[in-house]
């Protein structure tokens, strides 16, 4: 690079300009597209504020063919399924990441890492089918719930789906903890266990939080899988047993009903309104993730 820049300067300057311009255009266009998508969502979704009284929109009954557009059961359904999925996935995936990075001998790591990546590639519809035919009957029998298609079933499979994402990112975070931290800890007489839980994991904490946020973003946006296994009953999940009853998530509702609505109808606008709410939820999650990444970078600079 340095040599060629000396030998033919004018051409290099031209190509550099072109490449730079191209990268700029591509970079800005991706931002532009996101903004356009958001504007489109707003344009299609905001009319809902004028068409549906707020009391109806924030109500507790979702039954669009009778003009009942209470989104509360759907939003709470999404949050319930996602939170429980993360509560299940978090200990499993952090433990897996710690095992793969800190404990496992090299040859085990060589086998486990690609397997975890393959897990991430399983299409969600396959997981959904698996859940519908195997997990749901199991839950019906073992837990004695009225039906196997429950929020818990969805959360369980979502946890499995989010697992590889969290493991991979958390593992990278553990990997970026400097070896000197471990050496110092071990040199001071700490056992391997103490080193892992008191030094390495806390040092990688922000990376692990990012991993969890990414997993959460994946879980809350998942559609096909939850549509197949959660039963899609738009009941308000406020009682204690709600976890073991059916729920209807925001994403499943949009997917199930978008094909039916006439363009420009109130129902159509409400579904886009749901899209806006979902967009905001994932935006908040991603923002949290991004801010922890930023913190991590600053700390990385201290190394």
């Amino acid at each position, binding site marked *: 690079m340095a040599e060629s820049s000396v030998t033919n300067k004018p051409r290099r300057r031209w190509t550099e300009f072109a490449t730079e311009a191209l990268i700029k255009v591509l970079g800005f266009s991706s931002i532009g597209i996101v903004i356009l998508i958001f504007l489109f969502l707003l344009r299609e979704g905001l009319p809902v504020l004028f068409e549906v009284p707020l009391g109806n929109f924030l109500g507790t009954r979702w039954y669009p063919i009778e003009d009942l557009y209470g989104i509360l059961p759907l939003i709470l359904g999404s949050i319930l399924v996602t939170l429980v999925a993360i509560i299940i996935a978090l200990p499993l995936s952090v433990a897996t990441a710690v095992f793969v990075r800190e404990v496992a001998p090299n040859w085990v790591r060589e086998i486990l890492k690609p397997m975890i990546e393959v897990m991430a590639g399983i299409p969600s519809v396959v997981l959904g089918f698996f859940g*519908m035919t195997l997990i749901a009957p199991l839950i019906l029998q073992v837990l004695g719930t009225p*039906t*196997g298609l429950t929020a818990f079933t969805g959360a369980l499979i979502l946890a499995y789906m989010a697992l590889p994402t969290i493991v991979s990112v958390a593992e990278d975070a553990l990997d970026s903890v400097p070896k000197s931290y471990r050496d110092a800890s071990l040199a001071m007489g700490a056992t391997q266990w103490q080193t892992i839980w008191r030094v390495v994991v806390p040092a990688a904490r922000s990376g692990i939080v990012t991993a969890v946020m990414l997993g959460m973003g994946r879980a809350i946006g998942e559609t096909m899988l939850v549509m197949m296994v959660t039963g899609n009953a738009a009941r308000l999940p406020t009682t204690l047993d709600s976890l073991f009853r059916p729920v209807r998530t925001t994403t499943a509702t949009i997917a199930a009903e978008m*094909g*039916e609505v006439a363009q420009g109808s109130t129902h159509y606008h409400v579904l886009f309104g749901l899209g806006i709410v979902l967009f905001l939820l994932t935006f908040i999650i991603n923002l949290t993730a991004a801010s922890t990444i930023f913190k991590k970078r600053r700390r990385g600079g201290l190394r």
Partner: protein
Amino acid sequence: MALHRPISGIKSKNILLRILFILSILSILALSTACQPGEPDILPEGGNGQQTTTIENKGSDTLVNLALAWAEDYAELNPNLSISVTGGGSGTGIAAMINGTVDIANASRAMKPEEVAAAEANGFPPMEFVVARDAIAVVVHPSNPVDELTMKQVSDIYTGKITNWSEVGGEDRPIVLLSRESNSGTHVYFLENVIRLGDKNSDLLFSPDTLLMPSSEGISSEVRLNPNAIGYDGLGYVTHDQKMVAIAQDANGSYVLPSVESVNDGSYPISRPLFMYTAGEPTGQIKEYLDWILNEGQVLVLELGFVPLQ
């Protein structure tokens, strides 16, 4: 050996060339035959404005298997015509007709007045054809001891007034309600004619605990697996691993199981017509197709578990 090799090499080259030659001839033939269906179509084009030889047919999932069977049989009689059939629900088919993207919309419910108005506003005044009849069966797990229910009981179960099987003579088990998604014509029909018992002023709704399944298969698999479940679906979709419940119009009436006979003689209370809609008075090949469905095509209706017109 040394002599044979080059010879066999030449041979295989010849064979390759021959295969290529045959393939190219075949593809030319295929292209020319593929062009043929277009040719006779250009002639009547001036007459009825039908330019394509493809009839787009979309809508009700209840009707989709029957529509496919009709399309396949009719395409055999008319090789120049291709009919593409897709499901998605009555609402989907009607929405597509309102937007002018299909030739024939299948629906298991009649179009609502506002849908008719929307279609007319877009320049596609809908024409309605009853093409077959369907009975909706109420199904439970085979081990469920409940054999018969009145319409009122089914309504109370689906509105959430009755929540335990013991209230209708069954075991002490919670009732799990299954329904199709609200874009299904079967769902709307069930709401209007069973839950509301046909009363236009009633504002009864499905209980919020009702599980909305995205497909008929979702309902049948849950009914098969879950002894608490109750579901409903078109007679054509009930498999023998589900148990059908005999239905009575009221407590004094007799309990009737759904069957071709009981639907035709009107004794089974939950039955309905199935519709096809065209945008405006059908012409040309669409008209011929509908005429065929209403006459010769009725043989297939019985074969697929629906009830033919009489």
